[in-house]
């Protein structure tokens, strides 16, 4: 029976892959047709093959792998800081109710604040350097972590806490054995959201503030009127965003949802 399920699962994965491949094929086909119609000059719309050539070129000369490495390095560093600080501030918001309430009531503004709007501030406050870029990423994602930590913990059903206190849990043991696990499914959703904010922010910041990185090669493409490089960079940004979300964050969420039986609605 387990084998059956595994077989079914691999079938489903194959189907998904086939669908995705079909979608990409159709998309590229339409692109090729529009290219051949010649509505736009080549400089504004290269053909898929030209973009593929540029891809090969920037992979071959090392500029793409290097840019990806630099961007991800910055992003991970900044995101780690954001998670650590954001979670700590979130806990503080829980601990000090007035502070939490006040900060939470600003949440709509904090969450929807455009990341690009931090760039001028960051340039003047920190400087035109690595830390300036990381600052933009941190400021763009930290509020999402803070608010999600706060609301995830506050939305834990009282019954779990009552049951745990009833069995003698209090203070740190209550926090560690009940609060954190009970909040986890919701915390991961917050993490996914924060990740997407951080990803927006790093590309934006790199376009405006950097001399290396994915955002930078995108912006170089524009300066040299090299649309294939612009498109190649955009595809790279899309693929990385997709891979991280699908194969890391979504997997994590899915695993927890399955363990909790959250998808078993009867």
């Amino acid at each position: 029976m387990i084998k059956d399920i595994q077989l079914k699962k691999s079938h489903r994965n194959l189907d998904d892959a086939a669908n995705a491949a079909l979608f990409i094929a159709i998309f590229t086909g339409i692109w090729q047709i529009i290219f051949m119609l010649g509505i736009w000059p080549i400089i504004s719309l290269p053909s898929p093959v030209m973009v593929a050539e540029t891809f090969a070129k920037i992979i071959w000369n090392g500029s793409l792998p290097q840019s990806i490495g630099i961007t991800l390095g910055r992003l991970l560093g900044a995101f780690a800081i954001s998670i650590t600080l954001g979670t700590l501030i979130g806990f503080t918001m829980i601990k000090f109710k007035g502070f939490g309430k006040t900060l939470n009531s600003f949440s709509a503004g904090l969450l929807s604040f455009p990341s690009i709007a931090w760039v001028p501030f960051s340039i003047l406050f920190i400087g035109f350097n690595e830390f300036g870029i990381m600052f933009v990423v941190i400021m763009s994602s930290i509020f999402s972590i803070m608010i999600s930590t706060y609301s995830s913990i506050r939305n834990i059903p009282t019954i779990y806490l009552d049951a745990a206190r009833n069995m003698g849990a209090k203070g740190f043991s209550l926090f560690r054995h009940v609060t954190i696990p009970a909040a986890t499914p919701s915390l991961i959703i917050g993490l996914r959201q924060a990740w997407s904010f951080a990803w927006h922010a790093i590309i934006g910041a790199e376009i405006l503030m950097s001399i290396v990185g994915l955002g930078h090669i995108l912006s170089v493409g524009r300066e040299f009127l090299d649309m294939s490089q612009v498109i190649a960079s955009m595809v790279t940004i899309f693929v990385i965003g997709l891979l991280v979300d699908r194969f890391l964050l979504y997997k994590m969420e899915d695993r927890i949802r399955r363990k909790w039986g959250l998808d078993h609605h009867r």
Partner: protein
Amino acid sequence: MTKLQAKNIVKHFDHNGNSVTALDGINLNVEEGDFVCIVGPSGCGKSTFLNIVAGLETPDSGEILLNGKPISTPGPDRTMVFQEGALFPWLKVIDNIEFGLKITGIPQDERREISQRYLDMMQLTKFADSYTYQLSTGMKQRVAIARALAMDPEILLMDEPFAALDSQTRDLLLVELQLIWERTKKTIIFVTHNISESVILGNKVEIFKNRPSKIKKEIIIDYRRPRLAEDENLQKYYHQILDELKSEVIAQTKDELQ
């Protein structure tokens, strides 16, 4: 020996700015090994009373004595079985049962031994490694009972634990609970709005008056066990309690319609 004593427990609630008296001087003595059922119309404050005994809520006045000592905080000496089970979905069945033991610092080997015993008692051994969503409602309540018993409490508190069960499962658990009670000699306080449940389970049934709540009457049921739901000899107790409760339910409906 008196296990638990409630002395003049008073509790008010704030309801839309008005103070509502939920409990108006509850006095109750529970002897060691008693199976006390508290029955009353819904919203009469019987669950509030149980929460106060558990230490999850504090009374405005009055005190609860356990073995003669006043208590005010929750503690593993008074474990509760909640209506919805309140099992932890992130833990396997066995880890749910061991939760309180782990919190109180009991070493792993001993925990395993205790949990095995209660898994066995509640016929859950096959499900030790399941997660709670994989269980039926009846199974979940078995786990909840096992989890509460594993703490070896001085007194077991049960807050309408069978309310969400289908009647066959409930009848089965009603018998099992009596057997467990006889086997473990636990003192139990069982809150329910279901009169037959109280008649089948209790050797004392406390009838709660509608808000402001007081104990209206205590009925002693001295009858052989295990009692079955279909036992006709229990009818007279059933009707006795029903008569007492009828006027309460009518009073409550009037209250609500006003």
